[in-house]
């Protein structure tokens, strides 16, 4: 009987990749001075801080943080609304199948990419330096960040739509606006709403920490109490914002599941 030999795939390339990745990880850990043993030794220090924060938290402080939390939610709502509203027309312009002009969607995408790359916290600290402290700077930062995020996701959806409907309308002699209204919008709107809600979830989390750089909301109260080392109040703030964010997340993601 003939021997059946199954030649194994070449492993050289695969091993090389694994070695490179391992090298990158080890080099990064070394470069950043990450030492597992040191972390283990110091763990009890962390547990002491956690003890001062959460066992017990200063629950009598709770009434004082309701207003900042309400402000945080408002910032997230307004930021999401402005950013997502601006994102829809821009996404239509940035998609390469609606307007076929490289001169338009090339530069537009670069700008959107820059907006998305700069973290919301950095944007917020820039606006605090320009507009002064307060929720307004935070709203501007969240709007820009949401705009970049939602328009990118939306133009990718527009590019992936079923083109049959567009062609059907074109063969009937529909103009661009008709195509947009009757072929593109009905296909992308559920997705767009879902991205907007996703942006809202991201923004709630971002808004909760924006105050750290002076851009309003609960983060400001947090930073203040941390600076004064009122750790039991910090614990209350963390627990409270944690539950608010968790509840909003659960509501929003259950709506998203029904949308798409």
């Amino acid at each position: 009987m003939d021997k059946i030999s199954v030649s194994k795939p070449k492993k050289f390339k695969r091993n090389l990749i694994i070695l490179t990745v391992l090298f990158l990880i080890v080099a990064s850990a070394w470069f950043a001075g990450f030492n597992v043993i040191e972390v283990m030794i110091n763990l009890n220090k962390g547990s002491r801080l956690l003890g001062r924060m959460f066992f017990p938290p200063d629950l009598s402080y709770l009434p004082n943080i309701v207003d900042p939390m309400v402000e945080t939610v408002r910032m997230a709502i307004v930021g999401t609304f402005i950013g997502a509203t601006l994102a829809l027309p821009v996404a239509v312009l940035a998609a390469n199948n609606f307007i076929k002009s490289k001169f338009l969607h090339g530069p537009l995408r670069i700008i959107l990419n820059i907006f998305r790359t700069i973290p919301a916290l950095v944007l917020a600290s820039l606006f605090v330096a320009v507009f002064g402290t307060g929720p307004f700077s935070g709203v501007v930062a969240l709007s820009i960040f949401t705009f970049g995020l939602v328009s990118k996701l939306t133009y990718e959806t527009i590019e992936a739509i079923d083109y049959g409907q567009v062609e059907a309308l074109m063969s009937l002699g529909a103009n661009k606006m008709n195509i947009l209204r009757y072929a593109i919008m009905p296909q992308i709107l559920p997705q767009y709403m879902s991205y907007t809600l996703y942006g809202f979830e991201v923004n709630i989390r971002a808004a909760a920490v924006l105050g750290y750089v002076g851009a309003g909301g609960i983060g400001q109260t947090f930073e203040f109490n941390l600076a004064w080392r009122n750790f039991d109040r910090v614990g209350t703030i963390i627990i409270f914002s944690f539950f608010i964010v968790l509840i909003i997340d659960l509501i929003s993601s259950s709506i998203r599941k029904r949308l798409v």
Partner: protein
Amino acid sequence: MENIIVKKEINYLHITLRTFYYIVVFGLIFWGFKGIEYKGIMQSASGSINALIKGFLNPDMAYATNNTIDGLPFAILETIAIAISGTFVSAIISIPFALLASQNIVGSKVSKIGKLIVTMIRTFPELILALIFISVVGPGAPAGILALGIHSIGMLAKLFSESIESMDLGVKEALESCGGNYFEVLFRAVLPQVSPELMSYTLYRFEINMRAASTLGLVGAGGIGAPLIFAIRTRSWSRAGVIIIVLVITVTIIDQISSRIRKRIV
């Protein structure tokens, strides 16, 4: 010729519900706008914007080419190192969490608890984790790595468990019917099947962590954030400009490389 008229049925319940949703959504937006007081732009705003633009157009090149520990290249490299190590730590820890949250591995009751734990981790802000870890290991990059490592579990374990739940169970059942024990099933059936997706998700999280790592420095957890916030607070716009420009370029390049690898993996 007969006219074909398609009559649309009117569903009053549907319309009422829709109107109700619209009212709720617009009410919320209105409520939001009411609370954000616009105090007007500061008197100095136009001056600040001019200075900001001037600073961005004249980046601080001396800082960008300073190859010592205080220079920009070191801070950028440190940011990348934090992102890589943090992602690696979280990818490893995420696997047990993902198994705990997967319905087809531990059953539906346990997986619900697992999913809740994962959601809770995801909700906890990384900046606060960074503050906690700073008190553990002191200020610096290791605190940032731990913060990213823990926070990323929230997203990675969720995505991992989704891909475990949607995998083909045949291989697992075949091994079980041959008498394979739990770990044999795990390492020979479950993980090999989902590993390409796991790697792809890990890379995706690495891209996110690159951005997160650049803000961790705000609270003292290493990386580019600390020099950046310092430059913004002291309004040294030419330095802030060069940091933001280099950061945007670095993140964009890493995004491109990573998404190209992801496309080839899956």
